[in-house]
């Protein structure tokens, strides 16, 4: 945790690419959100593409990380077998497919006067799994819009890409759109 905090510390307001082994995803999420929400008291948006948002919500609750300043955009629960859990701080997107994510998610994130208006960070969980739902061309298009539109006003933008060895093309595209890459080795997250 302290290693991650040290690396993230000076990068507020910048576009950050995190890379880590996919098997440590839960720990990356917990460490990152603990730092952003609990230590820095920031407000943010969490875009859930890998699993329904309720998993992360429950994980954070168990780990004692407050969520009142975290807003969830759930892109995957419509195609999971699980019912979307209604909550003040959660909205359901129509799906994780290309058109839904590109239009729906982006519209909500950039809508003036919307939930995301005063947010300091956006965390996308996660870039690698999006390839299961869209082709690379769409993914790069989303990436470009995501980064450009949200970085305009100096928000800290966090992209996650795990297992860059498994998806070198996506990693390369993501890296081009970021200011800084932080590689999180397993040692930082191990028991």
């Amino acid at each position, binding site marked *: 945790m302290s290693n991650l905090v040290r690396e993230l510390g000076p990068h507020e307001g910048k576009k950050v690419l995190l890379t880590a*082994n*996919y*098997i*440590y*995803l*839960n*720990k990356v999420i*917990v460490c990152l959100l603990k730092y952003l929400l609990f230590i820095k008291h920031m407000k943010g948006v969490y875009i859930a593409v*890998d*699993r*329904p948002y309720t*998993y992360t919500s*429950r*994980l954070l*609750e*168990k*780990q004692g990380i407050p969520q009142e300043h975290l807003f969830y955009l759930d892109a995957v629960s419509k195609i*999971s*077998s*699980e019912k979307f859990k209604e909550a003040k701080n959660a909205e359901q997107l129509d799906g994780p497919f290309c058109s839904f994510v590109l239009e729906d998610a982006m519209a909500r994130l950039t809508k003036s006067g919307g939930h995301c208006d005063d947010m300091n960070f956006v965390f996308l969980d996660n870039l690698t799994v999006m*390839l299961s739902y869209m082709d690379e061309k769409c993914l790069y298009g989303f990436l470009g819009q995501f980064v450009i539109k949200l970085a305009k006003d100096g928000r800290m933008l966090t992209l996650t890409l795990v*297992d860059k060895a*498994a*998806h070198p093309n996506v990693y390369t595209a993501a890296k081009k759109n970021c200011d800084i890459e932080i590689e999180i080795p*397993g*040692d930082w997250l*191990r*028991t």
Partner: protein
Amino acid sequence: MLEQSDPSVHRVGMRKEVEKMASKLSRLPSGIPGLDSMMEGGFPFPSTNLVAGSAGTGKTTFALQFLSQGAKDGEQGLFFTTLSEPTQWMLRFVSGFEFIDKDTFGKEIQYVELGTFLRGERDPERILDFIEDHITEVMPQRIVIDPVTVLGELLEDNYRSFLYDLTTRLKNWQSTTILTGEVLPNQPYPVEVSYIVDGILVLSYEIAPEGGRRKYLEILKMRGTNHMTGKHLVDISVKGFTVQPGLR
């Protein structure tokens, strides 16, 4: 009769497709010597896998070795024991295996007595909640539920939907899980579990011509994986569970 099955002998077109598919899946080494070469390097991550067999085929040993590998690699493991054997006695009997590192007990590998909870609980949602509570606390990369089949007797009509919810949630919690399944000697695998898991490994034994029993492992199913088929000889010794691919 000994024969060698070489997993690299495939048509070129299919091989490329499989390699493309394989590169997209993260994999965890099984910890079982000889097994990873049979399934493209390890279990997909995340995934749920059934290890089925009758008594004495090595299911629990397999599962512990799987967790021990994770502990060696710096990962976190959770072992849920149901109503087969208390952890106390299970550990006493396995402590002699060379792969066991007692320093990991209670740390890299955490043991949870699900059986105690099951004695007073029949509500599938509460059982799932109990399991998830431990998962969110520990954040394991590897999970074992040993055995899962005992839950069928307790949950009856709710068993199928429970298994569906369980396997879905286990994968969403980002873990590779081994569910062990008890079967009778003439039953290959528990049918209800087989439909909803990503992988099925069957442990069996046969009477050898010279007397005694030979133990075997067969991969019946492994989603997203070009795996070896057929029964392959297994050895269980003080070193643990070992597969000898190609030996039948």
